């Protein structure tokens, strides 16, 4: 039973955003992208038809992981990298809850990489929000597993050496059944994918580009800035051709052999929208290509990249408990203790 099924009764109160705001002072740096994400989550939670008490927000460690303290729901601020594991135990035993995992690029992809891939592999019905700012914020500015090669930070004064993860590519490889991307400063898009995350039955992985204005300011600016985003982002719509670009310079993504190429759709280019790839969020081969598209060679895909229907771990977990009960009903404690070879001493 999902939270939706139990929650959409006539008694579900109608909430305002304020109902989801805790009384705690928010201690993120002024200008942090987290403020906008918090606001979109609070707004979205009013629209899901889920009673407030059925939300559990679970986080690890890092700036983003302070999130539960600011949500007037049930919340658990756990330890570094392990939020997916806590959430797995919670959701497996309490499938009635709507469980949200808040993590960051350090928390989720570095120290907690193992738990992240395994909760995605198991397809636990969680909503994982990974705030990607490509830097360690709370520890004051070391490079992260999503920082670009050559990143100069306090711990890498001559530049970082290791290649970054593409979070969605990692999640797809881990068997994730719902992949989406959005940006802290795109409130409407963000709310839309938050709703889709919750609606998806299974592990939803949402990468959010989030600006750390203190340690990695404008990390995504060249992609997400409103002045350029038409050229640098492709907003995916299921069943629609993948087109982008400024009004006077329309572009599209076209399949060329086994690769994706950017083509001009301007008049006289020889291409029209009908030549472009039609987004099919259920196509895993296509998803495998989309997760690799990155600026500047390609526009960055935004929205829902991939969705797959697959039984959830928590559903199967509960189903197995019920099945076990049907094959061995009404077993008493005495019968359990006295099982096996017994003998009586007179």
């Amino acid at each position, binding site marked *: 039973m999902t939270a939706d099924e139990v929650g959409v009764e006539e008694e579900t109160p109608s909430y305002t955003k304020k109902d989801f705001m805790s009384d705690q002072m928010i201690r993120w740096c002024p200008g942090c992208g987290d403020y906008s994400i918090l606001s979109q989550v609070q707004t979205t939670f009013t629209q899901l038809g889920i009673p407030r008490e059925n939300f559990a927000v679970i986080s690890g460690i890092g700036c983003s992981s302070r999130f539960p303290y600011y949500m007037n729901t049930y919340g658990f601020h756990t*330890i570094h990298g392990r939020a997916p594991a806590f959430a797995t135990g919670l959701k497996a035993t309490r499938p009635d809850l709507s469980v949200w995992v808040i993590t960051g690029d350090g928390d989720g992809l570095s120290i907690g990489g193992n738990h992240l891939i395994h909760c995605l592999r198991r397809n636990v019905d969680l909503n994982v929000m990974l705030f990607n700012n490509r830097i360690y914020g709370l520890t004051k500015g070391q490079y992260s597993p999503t920082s670009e090669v050559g990143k100069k930070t306090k711990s890498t004064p001559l530049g970082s050496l290791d290649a970054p993860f593409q979070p969605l590519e990692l999640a797809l490889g881990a068997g994730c059944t719902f992949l989406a991307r959005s940006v802290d400063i795109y409130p409407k898009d963000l709310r839309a994918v938050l709703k889709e995350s919750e609606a998806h039955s299974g592990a939803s992985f949402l990468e959010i580009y989030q600006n750390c204005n203190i340690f990695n300011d404008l990390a995504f600016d060249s992609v997400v800035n409103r002045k350029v985003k038409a050229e640098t982002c492709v907003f995916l719509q299921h069943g629609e051709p993948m087109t982008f670009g400024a009004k006077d310079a329309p572009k599209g993504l076209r399949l060329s052999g086994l690769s994706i190429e950017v083509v001009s759709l301007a008049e006289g280019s020889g291409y029209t929208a009908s030549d472009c790839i039609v987004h099919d969020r259920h196509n895993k081969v296509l998803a495998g290509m989309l997760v690799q598209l990155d600026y500047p060679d390609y526009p960055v895909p935004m929205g829902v990249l991939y969705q797959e229907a697959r039984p959830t771990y928590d559903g199967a977990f509960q189903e197995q408990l019920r099945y076990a009960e049907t094959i061995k*009903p009404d077993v008493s*404690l005495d019968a359990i203790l006295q099982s096996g070879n017994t003998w009586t*001493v007179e």
Partner: protein
Amino acid sequence: MQTPVQIRESVVIRFAGDSGDGMQLTGTQFTNTSALLGNDLATFPDFPAEIRAPAGTRAGVSGFQLHFSSDDIYTPGDAPGVLVAMNPAALIKNIGDLSGGGICIVNTDKFGDRDLAKADLTSNPLEDGTLDGFRTIPIRLSTLVKDAVKPHGLNAKESDRCKNFFALGLTYWMFNRPMETTQTWIKGKFKGKYLDANLAALQAGYNYAITAEIHHETYDVKPAKLDPGLYRNITGSEAVGLGFVTAGLKSGLPVFLGSYPITPASDMLHVLSKYKHVGVSTFQAEDEIAAVCAAIGAAYGGSLALTTTSGPGLALKGEAVGLAMMVELPLVIVDAQRGGPSTGLPTKTEQSDLLFAMYGRNGESPLPIVAAATPSDCFGATIEACRIALEHMVPVLLLTDGYMANGAEPWQIPSADSISAIHHRQTTEHNNPDGDYLPYKRNPETLARMWALPGTKGLEHRVGGLEKQDETGHVSYDPANHQLMTNIRQDKVERIADHIPLQETFGADGGTLVLGWGSTFGAIRQAVVAGQARGWDVAHAHLRHLNPFPRNLGELLARYDRVIIPEMNMGQLNKLIRAKFLLDVVSLPKVTGQPFKVQEILAAIDANR
């Protein structure tokens, strides 16, 4: 002519062979048969960490020792009186333990030059005097088995694998054991030609012993005078599992185990995985950390949550256990201790995680510690750990070890009604009409908080690892508050002492007290019984509660002239007792990977009385 039967009070037998020879199975079958005959018994499986070390080498020797008796016994025995050795490596590794004049049954088919070389032997122990002083029964076991199972169409390799049942048949004859229990077991386990062949091998061993009259007499051990009641044989791992099942039913809570396979703790996961029909769910996590974190997640959601592990796993779980302590959620962490440090001796026993359980977390992080004493005591100790966790809202460490996890003994099965209900602190009541729910408001006597679960309307609150303000649970960096909360968490654990039994002793006051904990129970008790029989002033106290100690422990220790603490570590309880009571106790440490022998403790008592 009927072979004469000699009645013995007790017998210690050890089966030894290659890891692949099925010695653990043979020992377990002999144990179950003897249990059903009503003997008191104690077992000691002792095997290498490698699943199949090179055949015939000393590294691959696996042993199973069983002590069965018509009297009360506490240990698997210091020295076997009978050794069954399947090859030269098994013989040479174990012959030193065989008591003088003991019986040694040897498979002589495995003593060719190549066999001797594999065991690093330059001369044949069957001929070089190694067996002088023992009653050796040489048997061409491999050949006899091959002939016995020939009609059933097994190939040479498969035939050879039946030889453990042949050896079992031999020993069943020698000790006047019925074969039905094992025959029934074989019928349930094997099919077709393997069923027929194993039954034939068992019978052939028995028949050969009669026909060849391999020994001039046989032995019988009469049933022990155990308290009346219903019994079963139980290992420590099984008892822990049943303890959790019972605690779940007695608390009315679903049980959730998060675990990651590790020797010697995996059997607890296996046992608990069989009880899904009574609301026990098990989760094999991706690692030790996820195992405990998932358990804490389940506890947050309202389950009786546990995690099972051994030393290396406990090391990984430390940070999460500290979080559970900080947020004050109930959790039981079982550490089946093994030889350390690091990977150490995975299949050998040790008690060297006591100080780690006590102090192995960052910050001031006191936790209650409960230790089981014997395989069957694991049942009660587990229920006790659950009770403390649920009633006091605290993670509890339950210490067992490899010796008791794998060892077996008869267990008088309690009736379900005789086990008390366990109360938990789940609530749906708001505790602060004037404002938000107060997750850290406490019971004034125990200092335990309430347990409000997600899904409960109106009690929404946040918990986390950051220091929290008293009552509200809001993040607080206030200096005075941190001191206050640290004191509260410490005090909460100390007050558990008001809810555990006072320490009892076995024996009179004065003289020497042997203070123990964990699986040293049997060896200590038997040594103290022996000492008392010699007229020594010696008593035994065995701690189940290692943190907090029973209220009367200090006063109790003061009643003795000397206190000896035998431990399978370098003196860890010794350090705790010295620190707490400023008492000059005698430490008797041992870290050989082997349990204490009664004689070792008896000698220590003699030297300190």
